[in-house]
């Protein structure tokens, strides 16, 4: 049962921003509502108004723009999962989307909503970090972009001001000879550990490794120190470093003990998934079939 609220339905970003400005904290943007409505049913959040942004054409649609994928904020996980464009050019993103929660949540939940709600146990943010994705934030003044990495502030907390709206997500294409892999792991409904790795490599030559970890810490984050350990190296050296890198990643992940498991175990799992993800990504990178799979729950 939901506490009562009124509904606003702007049809343009401009209109939506005006409503944001007028109602401030007493109103909340509403897209898929999969997370928002749950917490409202629990009585944890009460708003006088929900601002439904699904009628705003500018927020819809996906397109390739000079190699980068432009994703409208109200694009659902299912759309990502099933879009031929995404499947062809960003197969790992499509695979990841295909394993978000369950099909009903994917049908309704939006990428923009997922990123803005910033529930720590989520998949998309982690993977998109290794693509150096960015978000477009509209204000009455105009729109500015922010690196996704800066967008995540804390659990349920993002760098989105009360008078702003996230309009789109931009996902740059991976460099040549690069493959990304997303592995997640968990026993409960929500993932406990998510590790994304993008590897740029030629046979036996690892040029660049990008690593992001999610679910474990307060927010998804890039692990640049760990990336440094593995980049610009010959394969044998990288393999020899993987255990150390895994350990470092584990501690850098800032895990806490909770219902998903002990901090110790989660830190360890980060290392395991990192090693497995690296091997897969490397193999694909040198085979030249970029992208590949984000694997589902418990199939690490």
């Amino acid at each position, binding site marked *: 049962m939901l506490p009562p609220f009124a*509904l606003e339905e702007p049809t343009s970003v401009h209109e939506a921003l005006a409503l944001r400005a007028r109602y401030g904290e007493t109103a909340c943007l509403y897209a898929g509502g999969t997370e928002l409505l749950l917490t409202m049913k629990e009585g944890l959040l009460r708003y006088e108004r929900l601002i439904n942004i699904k009628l705003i054409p500018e927020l819809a649609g996906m397109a390739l723009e000079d190699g980068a994928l432009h994703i409208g904020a109200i694009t659902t996980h299912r759309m990502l999962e099933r879009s031929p464009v995404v499947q062809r050019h960003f197969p790992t993103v499509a695979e990841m989307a295909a394993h978000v929660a*369950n099909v*009903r949540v994917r049908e309704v939940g939006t990428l923009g909503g997922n990123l803005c709600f910033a529930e720590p146990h989520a998949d998309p943010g982690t993977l998109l970090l290794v693509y150096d994705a960015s978000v477009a934030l509209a204000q009455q003044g105009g729109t500015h972009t922010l690196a996704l990495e800066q967008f995540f502030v804390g659990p349920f907390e993002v760098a989105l001001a009360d008078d702003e709206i996230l309009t789109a997500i931009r996902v740059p294409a991976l460099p040549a000879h690069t493959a990304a892999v997303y592995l997640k792991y968990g026993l409960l409904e929500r993932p406990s550990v998510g590790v994304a790795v993008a590897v740029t490599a030629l046979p036996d030559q690892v040029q660049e490794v990008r690593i992001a970890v999610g679910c474990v810490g307060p927010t998804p984050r890039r692990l640049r120190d760990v990336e440094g350990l593995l980049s610009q190296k010959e394969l044998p050296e990288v393999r020899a470093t993987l255990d150390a890198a895994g350990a470092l990643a584990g501690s850098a992940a800032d895990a806490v003990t909770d219902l998903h498991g002990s901090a110790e175990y989660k830190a360890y799992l980060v290392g395991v998934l990192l090693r497995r993800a690296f091997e897969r990504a490397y193999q694909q990178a040198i085979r030249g079939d970029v992208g590949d799979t984000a694997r589902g729950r418990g199939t690490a």
Partner: protein
Amino acid sequence: MTDNRAHHGTATGQVLSIHVTVNGHAHDVLIEPYLTLIELIRDRLGLTGTKKSCDMQVCGACTVLLNGRPVSACTMLAFEARHASLLTIEGLAQGEALHPIQEAFIEHGGLQCGFCTPGMILAAKALLEENPAPTEEEVKHYMRGNLCRCTGYKRILESIMVAARRLAQTHNPGVLET
């Protein structure tokens, strides 16, 4: 608490008039913006085939098809059904002629207590419209969000695989649609 009630005060008045097609029948209903789809279906329209269990989009008991897409009625706002075609379990059979998925569930023991069955069958319908010849792995992946505590799933999986084969045989699965 008083501050919360103040909240309501400002919000309660609004009523939305929506047009929705439910199981092929057109309805014009007045709803509050905060009414959930399951409240509309069960309490206002009296279609109690849609079941409520976990109330957090995990179990799938309240699965209904909105324009053919599976959604959790428990955590969806009723106004989202505006101008849409809604299919609940009551609308799946054509009178006394059951849908092949319903028949398969009966023949292969895909149900016991029956509480998860409406959602299970509707999710299976959405799956088979999207992927008429799924592998067992594809069925498992799609149906992961529909829980059953009685059957152990084996016969649900069988039922869906059999229904898929039967639907493939009937040249135009569309005829069974509402």
